[in-house]
């Protein structure tokens, strides 16, 4: 562990005067339908990851807060704990687990007590109100040395309490684990909850679900741009399905390419300048690339079969796609210019909907196994394949989290189509949506920009 006893006081969240819908709570997680395994095994990356033991006592000062400030304070504390728990990096001992310890309240005197139940690090939070603002100071102590290794203070309106907590949680993960957190990432999806299928965005944990389009038609297949400030998507609102761009800050929508009878399934190049997509040519669907104004249209596939669902690799050199050229739909790879087309999957009778891991080593997809649709993951180098879901429920359309440790996907296991998230080994299944039918999730690469 790095030791750094600096009291970095920065990251005032004053400018973030955005409206976090305060009353919206994340949906209650569905009862676990899969038992989480005892150890976390990272698929095809080797090794068992040991969880860091973290003591997380109740935040100080929350008792002095009242009304909205008290609610915001509770939200900060619960969100930090939840973010760190969902990250999978920590084994957390909260107030209940710590209640058996004889703690004096003087941190330096309590180090041994915290260590006695195996804890390695201690997270302390202090909350206080400043008029219509809340101030949160979070500290992490190394229980070996007793030194504070990370300290951050945040100040902002009550409405941004969740964002404060996400920001701090990601700082903790970056500092202690050395990897970027995902607490500020977002998931775009399509939902028919308003009566029409529209594009929605939610936080990575299912909170704050908000509508992006209002076409009152069928809009689907959202795809984040790499910087996380715009979505490409398919919509029928102008008659034939075309691809449009929604800028999130301004709310502006404009066509990318809507000529011809069918344009769909956009996927951004990593530099954000082009999209790969599926387009119909005289009744047959082929893969194309184009600029964001529809210019420089380039055809990449040329087969008599269906070619669709392109996914641009994170390093930009390759595009994965689905083709039925060998009879059944299977995954293929090609260079981003269309050359060197080669088959990737041979298992099952139906493989479709490739999603790259952020490191570009794995592809998750929908695979039909014994008549049921499941989420499978294949290593593009070794071709080692693992099926992550089981049973009925039509599991499809996976998308990797930006840290590559989780997969969100659509399932009908509860009747309607809902979006779920699971770890890369299939464990820790949680349901993120509950209202209407929800599908076609796409997880952002960059933290939320809003």
């Amino acid at each position, binding site marked *: 562990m790095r030791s750094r006893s600096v009291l970095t006081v920065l990251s005032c969240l004053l400018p973030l005067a955005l409206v976090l819908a305060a009353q919206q709570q994340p949906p209650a997680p569905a009862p676990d339908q899969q038992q989480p395994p005892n150890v976390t095994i990272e698929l095809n990356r080797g090794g068992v990851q040991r969880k860091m033991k973290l003591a997380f006592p109740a935040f100080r000062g929350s008792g002095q807060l009242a009304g909205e400030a008290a609610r915001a304070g509770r939200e900060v504390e619960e969100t930090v704990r939840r973010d760190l728990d969902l990250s999978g990096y920590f084994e957390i001992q909260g107030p209940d687990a710590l209640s058996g310890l004889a703690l004096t309240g003087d941190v330096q005197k309590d180090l041994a007590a915290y260590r006695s139940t195996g804890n390695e690090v201690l997270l302390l939070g202090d909350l206080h109100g400043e008029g219509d603002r809340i101030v949160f100071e979070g500290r992490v102590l190394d229980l070996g040395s007793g030194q504070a290794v990370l300290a951050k203070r945040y100040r902002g309106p009550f409405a941004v309490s969740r964002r404060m907590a996400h920001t701090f949680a990601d700082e903790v993960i970056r500092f202690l684990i050395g990897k970027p957190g995902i607490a500020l990432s977002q998931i775009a999806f399509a939902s028919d909850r308003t009566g029409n*299928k529209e594009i929605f965005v939610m936080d990575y944990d299912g909170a704050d679900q908000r509508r992006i389009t209002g076409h009152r038609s*069928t809009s*689907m*297949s959202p795809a984040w741009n790499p910087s996380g400030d715009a979505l490409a998507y*398919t919509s*029928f609102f102008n*008659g*034939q*399905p075309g691809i449009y761009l929604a800028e999130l800050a301004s709310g502006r929508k404009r066509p990318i390419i809507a000529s011809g*009878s*069918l344009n*769909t*399934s956009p996927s951004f190049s990593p530099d954000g300048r082009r999209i790969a997509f*599926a387009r*119909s040519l*005289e*009744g*047959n*669907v082929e893969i194309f690339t184009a600029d964001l104004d529809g210019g420089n249209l380039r055809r990449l596939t040329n087969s008599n079969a*269906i*070619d*669709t*669902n392109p996914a641009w690799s994170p390093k930009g050199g390759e595009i994965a796609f*689905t083709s*039925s050229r060998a009879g*059944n*739909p299977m995954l293929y790879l090609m260079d981003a210019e269309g050359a060197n087309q080669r088959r990737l999957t041979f298992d099952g009778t*139906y493989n*479709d*909907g490739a999603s790259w891991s952020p490191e570009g080593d794995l592809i998750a997809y*929908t695979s*039909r196994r014994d008549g049921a*649709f499941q989420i499978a993951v294949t290593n593009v180098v070794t071709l080692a394949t693992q099926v992550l879901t089981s049973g009925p429920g*039509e599991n*499809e*359309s996976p998308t990797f989290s930006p840290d590559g440790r989780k997969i969100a996907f659509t399932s*009908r296991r509860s009747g309607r189509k809902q979006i779920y998230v699971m770890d890369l080994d299939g464990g820790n299944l949680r349901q993120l949506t509950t209202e209407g039918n929800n*599908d*076609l999730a796409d997880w952002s690469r960059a933290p939320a920009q809003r």
Partner: protein
Amino acid sequence: MTRKWMIWMAMPVLLTLLYGCPKKKPATPPADLKVETTTVPAPPAAPSQPEEVQQPAAPHVEDKTEDPLQSADMSVVNDELRRRGFSGDVYFDYDESTLTDDTRDKLSRNADLLKSQPQFQLTVEGHADERGTNEYNLALGERRANAVKDYLASLGVAATRLRTISYGEERPVCTESAESCWSQNRRAHMIVSGRSNVG
């Protein structure tokens, strides 16, 4: 042939020169043009017209004719065509866009009706069942719609009268997760969507 065509193409221009340009062209021809329809043989194919692509909404015109096929309400027209043996839907096997013999028979009857009523434009919608990804099913619906379009065209229905659109699995007629439902959703839906302005 080419010359006849050019005369047909030139007529709207001449009429425009004579009578000036109407502010908004009504989708249904005025009553006096109807007489012309019966005396002049319809051209083999309607020349492509940008107005048709935009599919103007059916105007609310009082229906004074007895013939349901003259109705401004396209649902009345579609009901009447189905009464005369027009198939509104043809069905497909799982992950298939090939036409079965039964489908070909139905489309043959549809083609005859369409050829006898050359004023109508047909929209062919391609649909798929819920299994598989939404994206693949959009592509599958596109192939189904175009398989129907190509077959109707091969039977002599002018391709310019035929428009296709794929809805994939997005607009199911039946929403249960069972084969009894899926088989109803694997379809091409044919609907008369407008009239050509010619004739």
